[in-house]
Structure formats: C-alpha cells, structure tokens
C-alpha cells in the first residue's frame, strides 16, 4: 500500500503531541536517534497510535524499529489498520 499523506499528517501531529516539539520534516528521520523521543515516550506514542487509528498493536509487534520514524509508522499502519 502506498504512503498515505493524510495518515502521515495525523502521525506527525501525534509525534508532536507526545514529544512536545515539532516532528521532523524528513519522514525517514529516526525520532530516537535525533533525540526527539526517548524510551519512555515510545510507549506513549504507541498508545496514542492505537487510540488515534483504532488499532491494537500486539506485544509481538512492540519493536522500536516499527515506530522509529513517521514513514515506518505509516508503513506499519498500512499493513495493519483496518
């Protein structure tokens, strides 16, 4: 499934809400390596994604790499959102 610009915009807003700072312009940029999010923000981000997109991320998918960037979150949701 191709990238969804609306979904990416919603993800960008979620990242900004959790981080308290603007999300990076580069949607491939690692949110953790850039220091925007730390390990304790990650559970909050996953919970926010579950709520916003009405999906349940199973424990087996709780891999930081799947939520490392806006592009990767979008790809995950493309595969899993209903």
């Amino acid at each position: 499934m191709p990238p969804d610009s609306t979904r990416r915009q919603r993800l960008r807003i979620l990242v900004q809400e959790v981080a308290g700072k603007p999300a990076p312009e580069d949607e491939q940029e690692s949110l953790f390596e850039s220091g925007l999010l730390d390990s304790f923000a990650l559970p909050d981000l996953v919970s926010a994604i579950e709520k916003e997109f009405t999906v349940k991320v199973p424990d087996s998918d709780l891999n930081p790499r799947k939520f490392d960037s806006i592009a990767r979150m979008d790809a995950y949701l493309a595969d899993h959102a209903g």
Partner: protein
Amino acid sequence: MSAYLHGFGAHVPERVVANAELAGRLGRDAEWIEKVSGILERRWAAPEVTVAGMGVAAAEDCLRKAGIAANTLGMLIVASGSGARGFPGPAAEVAARLGLDSTPAIDLPIASAGSLFGLALAMRLAETQGDILVVAAEKMSALIDNDPNTAILFGDGAGAALVSARPGRWRMLDAVLHTDGQYRGDLAFDATGPLRMNGLTVILQAARKIPSSITEVLGRQNISAQQVAIFLLHQANLNLLTRVAKSLGVGPEKMFANVQRYGNTSSASMLIAASEWSETNPAPGPVVFSAFGAGFHWGALVASEG
C-alpha cells in the same frame, strides 16, 4: 495449596555512589541521570564482596526477623544474574555459609525477575518442601562499563523472603509467570561482558507487560487495582514505576519506590523494596509483586494480609 510470606530481609553495601560521582566519568550531568531514571544514588560493593556474600547477609536478616533458624529450612532458592561463576551458581555457597549441608538449594539465573519467579515457585512448593528461603543477590556494578545508558542505572544489593505453608502474615493468593525468548538479546550479559541493553525495546515491552501481568493475576482473584494496598515492583526506573501506575489507574503513591536510593539492583530490588516496606507498619490489604527482566521474563504475584 496454602503458602504465606513470613517476612523479608535486605542487605546493601555501605559505599554510596551519587550521580555526581558518575557524571564526570560518563560525560553526563547529574541532573540528566536523575531525569531519565529518577535515581539519585546507588550502592556499589567493594571488589572483595561477592553475590553470595550479600545473599547470606540478606538471608540472615530475613531469618532473624522471621524468627527461623537456617537449619529448619526445607529449601533455598537464590536468584542472581550476576554470579561470579558459570557454575555452580551462588545458591550452593549461600547454602554452605548458612550451615546447610543437605538442603536443596536452587539457582535462578534470571536477572531482574528472578526474585518474582523464586517467590512463585516457593508458593507452589512450600506444602511439600517446608519453609523456603528465597534470596536474590546482585553485584551489577561488576557487569557494567562506561556506557551511560546502563552505568547510571545499576546498583548492588540483596533481598530475601521467607515462604512457608505455616500460616503467616501475608497469604500468597496467586501468581502468573511468562517468558518470551525472542527478546533474549535485548538485555544480556555474555561471558565476555559488558551488560548490553536495548533500552527502547526493554521499556516498550516492560511498560506493556508489567501492567498486563498485574491485571491478569488480579483479575483471576477478582481484585481491582484500586483495592491493592501497595505495589512492590522490580525497581528498574522511577519513570517506569510511574508509567505502570498510570496504566493501572492508580496513583503513584501506590508504587513503593526506593530506586532513588539504591538504583536498579536487578532481581534483588523487589525484595529490598519489600523489606523496607514491611518495616513501615504497612496498611492491610492486597499486596502485588511484579517484575520484568532479561529473557524477557515477567509476571506478577498477589498476596493479602491474613
């Protein structure tokens, strides 16, 4: 099956290592350490102090408080992820130094969650084995290098708990234990060291699995999180304890916390916390133990006074 917790014990080394001491060595400031972990200081054991030595000190403290002689024990369980040898583990030395020469002594090399697994096993074995002493001892300072993400967290110490089928203060009601080995590389100490931790994965998994195991065991006993008098969790990180409280819908004051003073003492932390809590004239009501650690291993146990 009936099993009771009769008491707890603890031992921590004398040497206090404050954040300021670590800050220069690690290239981070003391405020950053406190912000990301909630830790203000930890205890580090002297080079000659062993895991077994700290375990014996906690065991003796527990036995004294419970009014039990070591030679009446039916089993000894020793949890540690930082024993000095591959084998035998520290259980044999702890047993020998307690004067036990035929009592079964079992090692649980389960970092962080070992004391929880020990309590759960003791709960199920007490009727057949008699009094069981669960000890958890860790010398985590020997496993770390100058990686600030791990070096700031860990401390040394030991805790102990006496479990018996004889009626005691806290009746052990139920326990759930889980393991998911696909994450075994995300928190590990190989023979060559140092300790390796993928903090993002550990926190992401722990933040989900600790509340879910607590909810699971409380649900089986028809107890709500709000009814619980105190949560005695593995003291990994103050931020994680706060997050677990939020997930369970209880206030942070329900999470007993001493990670600020001792750091993360891995499997020992839950029993050190229990020992300190038990000396505070605690209010009656359900008590929840929970831990998450290398493996990943995790779970929860509920007990109640009476």
